[in-house]
């Protein structure tokens, strides 16, 4: 019944899931403590919103044109954090979207944040805007930058050819910029144009760090263990390869 070439991945999924659930339970009950390293980007998020409050200008947040994937969900977490800061400090938000499917979630997050601060009346319907896909999305963001001159620009999500253009537009209006993407080929453009960048997995970890839920922290911890395992397998595999053994490669292709 098992498909050849997928067995190892299946075992990995089962082991990962079990490890995450076990660790989450341990963290939840307080039996174990896991601390995640705090990076400068988290402080920069607070600074960006604070800067917008001082300047009396809005914060712009966008997700990119990529399809909905894990990085979009991580970005929703970061949006939740940023918008809650904005609601606390009475800073206006502009959330621009390329996918209509993201609209209900983004709107819910924004509304909830303002509701939690008891400022429902200050949450405007135009905080979340759908600009449609392709270059009309990028053009729409250019217009937001020119007309509303946000003090901070968050570009966190699956970006493609717009990855260089959006932060460039933000730079023109002097916005403090925080970028992040898991699309490997687009990372350099965000690194080159943003003040701070979440590279690849940084985004997922940022989501876990900001929410602080045991399940997400357990997931990051399990991934770190898996990465250590991967490093060992890589080195061991190369050494065995020297002696003509394909044991690791064969194991992975089970």
């Amino acid at each position: 019944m098992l498909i050849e070439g997928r067995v190892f991945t299946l075992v990995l999924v089962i082991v990962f899931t079990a490890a995450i659930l076990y660790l989450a339970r341990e963290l939840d009950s307080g039996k174990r403590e896991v601390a995640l390293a705090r990076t400068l980007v988290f402080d920069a998020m607070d600074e960006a919103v604070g800067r917008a409050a001082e300047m009396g200008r809005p914060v712009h947040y966008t997700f990119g044109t990529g399809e909905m994937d894990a990085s979009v969900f991580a970005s929703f977490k970061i949006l939740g954090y940023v918008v809650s800061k904005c609601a606390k400090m009475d800073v206006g938000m502009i959330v621009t979207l390329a996918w209509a499917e993201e609209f209900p979630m983004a709107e819910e997050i924004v509304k909830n944040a303002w509701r939690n601060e008891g400022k429902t009346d200050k949450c405007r319907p135009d905080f979340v805007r759908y600009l449609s896909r392709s270059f009309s999305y990028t053009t729409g963001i250019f217009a937001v930058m020119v007309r509303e001159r946000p003090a901070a620009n968050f570009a966190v999500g699956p970006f493609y050819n717009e990855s260089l253009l959006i932060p460039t537009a933000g730079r023109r209006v002097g916005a403090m910029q925080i970028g992040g993407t898991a699309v490997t080929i687009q990372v350099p453009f965000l690194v080159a144009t943003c003040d701070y960048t979440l590279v690849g997995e940084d985004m997922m970890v940022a989501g876990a760090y900001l929410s602080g839920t045991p399940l997400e922290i357990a997931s990051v911890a399990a991934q770190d263990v898996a990465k250590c395992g991967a490093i060992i397998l890589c080195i061991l595999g190369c050494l065995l390869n020297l002696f003509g053994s394909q044991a690791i490669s064969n194991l992975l292709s089970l």
Partner: protein
Amino acid sequence: MISSDFGVWVGAFFTLAIFSYLFKGNIVFEFAEHTFIGFSAAHFFVEGYHNIINMAVRPMQEGQVSWIIPIILGVFLFARYVPSISWLSRFPVAIMVAIVSAAQIRGTLHAEFVSQIAATTELNILELSDLIFLIGVVTVATYFLYLKRLRESRVLSATSRIGRYFLMVAFGASLGTTVMGRYSLLIGRLQFLFGDWIKLIK
């Protein structure tokens, strides 16, 4: 001789209108922007309509009644505009999130984890390029460790610093390639303006 083709004129007008942003925000740019977004939204509306007809309504007419489920879920999305039943809109969102997550787990784990390790194990580390590759893979992997205890370890913090240099080299190479690509896009637009439109160049 300047082009007499109406389509080329429209293209040239919108190209210049978008370029006018480089000077500053202006009404011509705004016109182009709104037109662009309007056309794009209309395009995706029509695409969405055809998707519903071709992927749900037609199969239902052919007897595959299970397609009623995604249609109902889609209608639920609009419940958010009726406060008394707005909670219904959470179901399609929750299902969407669950399906996306489930669909991606195997693909991502296999393509971005297992396959990458398998490819790395095939390196011949007696060759310098392969050895550098292995060092790059290992040190970059240590850069992406997030547990405080691991980050603060002396060995891993040293390897992660080396990993950061590898990342910077890779980013630099990628950026250079794309900048070249963007120049070719600009050249394409200029060729359109000076070739197809005002015909200064052939």
